[in-house]
């Protein structure tokens, strides 16, 4: 593996402050759903890579898509890159979503805000697996946004995968009112949604609630976590999450999100 130069093949703003980019890079051909890349700002006062999920890979396997929210100086700089600009990326990093466990199951994808990009690549893989033997039984997605101003970004992409896609907003300005976990609970009690397996990505409080919801239903949930990172490859021990089991590196209870994760089984995490 190495840090490589990627070329921006397209750049589009999906909603205010939400940017989608396709990057041409060789890492695309071995990326898996749930893995991430580090994108390095050019400004040499900003030396650490910014972690972003791999949202999608093109059919040719030579481009990755990232979708991100402008939330600080680094993302601001990356968002200002234009068509044909070059940016340094490293990846694919981390362990993604396990796919085998979806076999024969009704799968629910839960995305909160900027968690949605992490699930699109997974949705595509799961959908493909439905048609083949040993895949998921069916897949639905529930995407939550703060409000309608976010223009339910990426929802069309999930629909294009050919799976049932539901929208929720905190203020009810689009789709169903409520946060994704509240809505999922409601739909479950109405027997509209009867998941046997959940994959989720979003802010930490949401993921914690997803874990509790899955525990109530006695089903597994795989969640993708976030933490500040320095190396992204498991060397600095900067990005840990407390876990029930002993971690593979230090034999304590602090697994590295960049290496043992970013995807963890929810019941494995100590909140």
């Amino acid at each position, binding site marked *: *593996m*190495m*840090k490589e130069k990627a070329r921006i093949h397209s750049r589009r703003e999906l909603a205010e402050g939400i940017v989608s980019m396709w990057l041409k890079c060789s890492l695309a051909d071995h990326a898996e759903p749930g893995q991430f890349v580090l994108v*390095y700002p050019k400004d*040499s*006062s*900003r*030396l*650490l*890579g910014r972690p972003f999920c791999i949202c999608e890979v093109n059919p040719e396997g030579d481009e990755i898509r990232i979708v991100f929210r402008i939330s600080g100086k*680094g993302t601001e700089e990356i968002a200002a890159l234009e068509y044909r600009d070059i940016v340094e990326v*490293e990846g694919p990093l981390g362990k993604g979503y396990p796919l085998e466990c979806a076999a024969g199951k009704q799968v629910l994808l839960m995305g909160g805000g900027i968690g949605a990009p992490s699930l699109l690549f997974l949705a595509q893989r799961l959908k493909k697996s439905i048609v083949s033997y040993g895949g998921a039984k069916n897949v639905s997605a529930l995407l939550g946004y703060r409000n309608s101003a976010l223009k339910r970004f990426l929802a069309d992409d999930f629909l294009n995968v050919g799976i049932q896609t539901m929208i929720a907003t905190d203020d009810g300005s689009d789709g169903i009112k409520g946060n994704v976990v509240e809505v999922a609970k409601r739909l479950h009690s109405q027997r509209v949604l009867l998941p046997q397996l959940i994959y989720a990505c979003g802010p930490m409080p949401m993921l914690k609630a997803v874990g509790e919801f899955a525990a109530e239903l006695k089903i597994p949930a795989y969640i993708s976590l976030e*933490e*500040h*990172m*320095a*190396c*992204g*490859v*498991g*060397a*600095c*021990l*900067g*990005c*840990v*999450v407390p876990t029930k089991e002993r971690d593979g*590196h*230090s*034999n*304590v*209870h*602090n697994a590295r999100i960049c*290496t043992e994760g970013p995807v963890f089984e929810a019941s494995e995490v100590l909140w």
Partner: protein
Amino acid sequence: MVKKNPDLSVSLCGITFKNPITCASGTFGSGMEYAQFVDLNRLGAITTKGVSDRAWEGNPTPRVTETPSGMMNAIGLQNPGMEVFAKRDLAFLAKYDVPVIVNVCGHILEEYKNVVEFLSDKEGIAMFEINVSCPNIREGGMAFGTSPKELLHVTKEVKAVSKKPVIMKLSPNVTSMADMAKAAEQGGADGISLINTFTAMKIDVYRRRFVLANRTGGLSGPAIHPIAVRMVYEAAHAVEIPVIGMGGIASAEDALEMLMAGARMAAVGMMNFHEPEAMVHVIDGIEKYMEETGTEKIVDLIGCLD
């Protein structure tokens, strides 16, 4: 006057290193994670993450954050302890032809001695680097490294149980670098390395919170490089024992500055995070510098300013 194949080798405490570049402890694991990016055999030495006598959990997160041309960390020395280290990390490193410098940490003197005693008999260790300068643990760590008297005492005690050369790693959070260097030398240290990180603080004004869970963290990276060069110069000119220089090295020029300031070897730290091949680029750059300036031996550059 381009000269081909200059001699980059240096010797320190009776050990010969093929070039003067190693990694700074804690920024390269035990090399395992970076072996997919870098041919470890290219490096002058590998300096491991701090090893303690038992496994350490480390600090709560966030443990790292970026700062202008640098970063702050408060990892809290999470590590699996000396037994797992010996079984796993040393066994891994044995596959490579590269000297290993084992960085040692502890809360109290006994813990440092336990590690050094236990590892002294293990194969594949060139020397120990004793971290008496970590700003991120409450006891031990930096407390030993900021008083010359304490430093002298710890050095003596560790030396007494070590069968390998002992390098004392010094903190920059002191008034006189020269005094600390002398204390380590008087304690019998075979060498010193510096600098560890500067105690620093970052506040998120919008959330009105400390950015790091530990409140303070150690500042490293190119931002500290000129201060590190000054401190290496002061230390190297205060003692006879060899010095390993580090702090913000990002290029061959930065490493050469350390050597010219008097360091026998130089270590690359946080820049490994920015560029996994940073050390290889530094080594290649030094070789190129030597070819272009007609320098036959790297040792001719060490402390060449005076």
